[in-house]
Structure formats: C-alpha cells, structure tokens
C-alpha cells in the first residue's frame, strides 16, 4: 500500500469511528429520552 493509502485508511477510521459513535449516542439518547419525563432531562 502507498503512503497515501495508509493516510486515507487512518483518516477514514478516525472520522468514521467518531461519527458512528456520535450517531449511536444521539440515537440511543433520543430513544431513552422518550421513556423518562422531561423533568428528568434537566439539560433541555
């Protein structure tokens, strides 16, 4: 693999992993928020 290939894999892994984790968190947060009353979500 060329140097550009290693760089590309690295950047895709970093940006992809963080984006995927953030998406999972937001989706799960949205789902769980519906199960608790608004007063339990004081950050709103």
């Amino acid at each position, binding site marked *: *693999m060329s*140097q*550009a290939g*290693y*760089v590309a*894999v*690295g*950047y895709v*892994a*970093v*940006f992809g*992993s*963080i984006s995927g*984790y*953030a998406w999972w*968190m*937001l989706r*799960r*947060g*949205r789902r*769980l*928020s*519906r*199960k*608790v009353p*608004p007063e*339990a*979500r004081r*950050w*709103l």
Partner: protein
Amino acid sequence: MSQTAVVDGAPGSGEDALGHTGSVATRWLGVVVLIGAVALLAFGLVFSDPDVIQGDAVRLMYVHVPSAICMYLGVGALGLGSAVWLKRQTEFWDLLALAGAEIGALFTALTLLTGMLWGRPTWGVFWVWDARLTSTALLQVMLIGYLALRKLPGDATVRARRASITGLVIVLDLPLIHYSVEWWRTLHQGATISRLDPQIDGLMLFSLMLGIVVGALTFVWLMIHRFRLAHLEEQVEDRGLDAALDARRAEADRPPPAGDTPLVRTSP
C-alpha cells in the same frame, strides 16, 4: 437559533416531548466541531506539505496525536470520577467515570490504529512490543475490562464501588505510557511538541495544533452527550425496577379468586 433555544426549553413542546441529549450549548459546540473537522481535513490533507523524510505519512500525525491526547483526557476523567465517587458516592461522579472510560477506550483504539498505520511506512512494521505501544495496548484491554465489569448485574452502589477501584488501578497506566519513551529505549519517538523548542514548524505545527484543538472540542462534546445518555440509562433502569416492584406488590395484594382453596394445611 435563539428561537430554537426557546422551543427547546419550553416544557411540553413537541421536541421536548420527543427528547434528546442535546442542548443549545452542545448544538453550538457541535457546529464548531464540524467546522473544525473540515478545517483539519483541509490543512491535514491539502495545505500542509509532506515531510522531507516521512513523506505523506506525516499527515497521520494530525489525527494520531489528538487521539492520544483525548485518550489521556478520557482516562483522566475516569480517574477523577472514580476517586471522587469513593469519597462522595454520588451518581454524577460514577457517570463521569463511565463516560470517560468509554470515550477513552474509543480514542485508545484510534491511537493504536493510527499509530500502526503510521508505523508501517516509517518503521517498516505495524507493531513492535516496545514500552509505549505495549503499555497503550494494556490500557485498551483494561478499559474494555472496566466496561465489561460495569455490565455485571448487582446493586448500583456495589457496582460503582468496584468500578471506581478498578478505574483507579487503570489510571496508574497513564504515567507509565507517558514516560515510557524516557524510562526505556523505545522505537516510538520521544516528546516533540511538549518541548520548549518544538522540532516541527510552519503549517505542520499549525495543522497539529488545529488537530489537538478540534480533538479536545470533540472530546468535550462526546463527554457531555455520553454523560447525559448514562443519566438516561440510569433513569430507565430505576423506572423499570420500580415498575417491576409495583407489579409484584399488586400481585401479592390481589385477593385470591373465589372458589380457590387456600394452600394452608390444617391439622387433622
């Protein structure tokens, strides 16, 4: 945006009823992180020049070093949350430790991965068992173990206590990782940017600093959301337990159906 803020805060509004872990502050922070990420991609991949010796492989530094710093921050949060929980025993510190451990595990994995990808074209190998790499791999294993330990069933206080003690043990690995390049002869390079006279300059230094700032802001955004998510998980778990207890009590209080003979044996 200010209108959105008012709608967010209004009790009973549509979005409020749906629910999420975001707030006005985290949305602004998220926008800043996205702009920073685009800038990092531009400077890291386009504007900065290749290194004279390492060539294009040096571009991995702009994501590897910020990942390592976020790893330190995550494990630092784990240590802080664990230590203060043992003193105060409040949910806040336990959830802070959890968020730090999970995000720390993510960035430890990214540090190891980008380091391996950087090592192959510069060292000729993906992996060597030198002190820096081995102690970082050990941290990854311990963080996974910590997260698995938290999944074990049990009383919340007992779970938080054993997690806190484990968290404090894990934090001991941080100085080992940081000073490993000074204490032992390693293939991994020593400190570059923490010196008073950094050995890189120009756009490379700027790209690296930009990566560190964007990484730190991303870490803060992730920590806030993970903390709120952990709070929601605790709430849902508590409510589920309460509902199960109420159902059991209602079942016990219910009178037996007419015609049923009580299961009481009378003496002949």
